[in-house]
């Protein structure tokens, strides 16, 4: 009976072939390391956030007079409300944790290289959506840090040329962050995850066109691909188990470590907290914002610092595949960049003093400098490495990529000639 049912469906809808091509039989490089688990983990955390969020929304009230109380109602009176809320609050941090590793892996192994640029750019779009969603969600508990964080960040849009003040009022729905802001942030915080799901589908379609990169950095022969199921379903599930253990330590034993104490005080527009800090995942970008003395410049620098990653396919001009795998200088740049992010995070966390401002400025310069110098450094490094000698499989891949590029250019050229004729 099930067989006949599936046959009936298959005549009308490509169910079996879809499952076979895109899920179970999807060809995956055999040599993927555990760093390749984080895409799946990000998808899992997304589902976790949607599931807990929907149940939280059943008890939450988006109203400046009620929202703080409704969180306490969830924490105290709703059955396992504390669990839902801690899972959701911890989940936000878990999401960024997983995404940052996912991005770091892409940067390390050069997975953004042709032909995976669009895959990388859809991921960049997902990062922006995630940041917007997290930022809006942080207003909802209506604590001191929620209120003042939203006030500071919406205020940044004053930097928009000519219509800055109007844009800020348009975003807030009022002259200050208030009830209008809270209700719209709630509405959008509920909407954005579904946009993220849509963008994830686009991301996956792009992935399934170009397939996964792999740690060797070299396109594998067809025979080196193995079906996704059962090899990577079980590998992903094992990784998920490890991830859930770390996540549960935070949810059950350290849930308040990720919540600022000031956010346990109801929002008070008349009283600024001593020190406004964003959530840890925004700290490096916040430090960049503060390091530029001019406001418009700071906002531009912060926006650019998030968007810089998208330029990587253009900035990295080395023809040597495999990211940091075959490239010692790029590898050094990668680790120094991570260190720079940590320094920026520390600067963003501490109250500004002359000393931290100076460190922040140096770290900001290094941040942009490391992107700026990649085109030159990568070219010099390529020349040096080729002179020193590379593994034959790397050379042959570079040659085949060059041939493909030439063929493509010739095709374009011929078409242009035909058009002109």
């Amino acid at each position: 009976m099930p067989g006949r049912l599936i046959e009936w469906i298959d005549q009308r809808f490509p169910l079996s072939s879809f499952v076979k091509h895109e899920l179970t039989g999807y060809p995956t490089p055999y040599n993927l390391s555990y760093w390749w688990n984080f895409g799946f983990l990000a998808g899992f955390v997304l589902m976790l956030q949607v599931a807990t969020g929907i149940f939280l929304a059943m008890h939450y009230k988006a109203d400046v007079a009620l929202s703080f109380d409704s969180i306490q109602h969830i924490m105290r009176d709703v059955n396992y409300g504390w669990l839902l809320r801690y899972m959701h609050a911890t989940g936000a941090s878990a999401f960024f944790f997983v995404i940052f590793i996912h991005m770091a892996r892409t940067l390390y192994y050069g997975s953004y290289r042709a032909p995976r640029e669009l895959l990388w750019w859809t991921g960049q779009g997902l990062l922006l959506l995630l940041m917007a969603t997290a930022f809006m969600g942080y207003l909802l508990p209506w604590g001191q840090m929620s209120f003042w964080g939203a006030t500071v960040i919406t205020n940044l849009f004053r930097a928009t040329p000519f219509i800055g003040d109007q844009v800020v009022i348009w975003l807030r729905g009022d002259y200050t962050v208030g009830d209008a802001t809270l209700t719209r942030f709630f509405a959008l915080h509920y909407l954005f995850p579904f946009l993220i799901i849509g963008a994830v589908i686009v991301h996956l379609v792009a992935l399934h066109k170009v397939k996964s990169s792999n740690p060797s950095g070299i396109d594998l022969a067809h025979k080196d691909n193995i079906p996704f199921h059962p090899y990577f379903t079980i590998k992903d599930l094992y990784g998920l188990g490890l991830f859930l253990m770390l996540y549960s330590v935070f949810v059950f034993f350290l849930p308040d470590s990720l919540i600022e104490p000031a956010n346990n005080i109801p929002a008070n527009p008349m009283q600024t907290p001593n020190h406004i800090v964003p959530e840890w995942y925004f700290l490096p970008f916040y430090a960049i914002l503060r390091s530029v003395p001019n406001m418009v410049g700071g906002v531009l620098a912060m926006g650019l610092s998030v968007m810089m990653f998208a330029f990587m396919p253009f900035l990295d001009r080395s023809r040597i595949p495999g990211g940091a795998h075959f490239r010692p200088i790029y590898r050094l740049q990668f680790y120094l960049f991570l260190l720079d992010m940590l320094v920026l995070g520390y600067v963003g966390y501490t109250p500004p003093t002359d000393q931290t401002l100076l460190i922040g400025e140096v770290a900001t310069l290094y941040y942009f400098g490391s992107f700026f110098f990649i085109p030159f450094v990568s070219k010099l490094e390529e020349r040096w490495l080729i002179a020193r000698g590379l593994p034959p499989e790397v050379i042959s891949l570079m040659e085949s990529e060059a041939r493909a590029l030439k063929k493509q250019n010739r095709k374009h050229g011929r078409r242009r000639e035909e058009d002109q004729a």
Partner: protein
Amino acid sequence: MNKLLNLALLWCLANSATASEIELEKIHKEIDSVALERGVEALMADCHSCHSLKYVKYRDLIQMGLDKRKVDALRGEQLMDAPMMAEMPESDAIQSFGKAPPDLSLMVKAREGGDRYVYSYLLGYYTKPDGMLGNHIYPETRMPDPLGIAGATGTEQRVAIQGRARDIVSFLDWAADPHEVERLHLGNYVLAYLFVLTTLLYLVKQQIWSGLRRE
């Protein structure tokens, strides 16, 4: 690379050492119901005339482990489902102290340092040379020394007041997070379960991948 890391570490350490903050006192908070009972009674006597705990209902105290008769004695004429509001109306408090006394339901979560902060603050009162009261932890405070630590002379008296402060803070800890015990308890089971599950998944993974290597 390592040198840089060391430098960065050293720099962070040096920085944290120079940041001079008043050392908060350590507190061994109690979670047994006897201490919590002493805590709620001390709080009702010393704090509750001015401070509310609006997110805690009298009925919640039964869940905390308090006897129903004792809750009845504490609540007086208040309903069982009424929140523990201060006896003094807020407007009177503002007239007396110039500021509304903050709600205590989330107090230990709302301050950097948590329960240690509240404990040190309660014990932080001293008499200034001009005879006025001061507080080491929060100098701008408007609250008069509720436990009388500034006037305590003998060691015995100080120890008794420290014990009372510890009881109150232990109760406030419970009030800020009434499900904490349940959460830690459940957390142990969840972690144990995940540990077993993950181990099994690892073994299955090894099993499945070993087939691949043989080919």
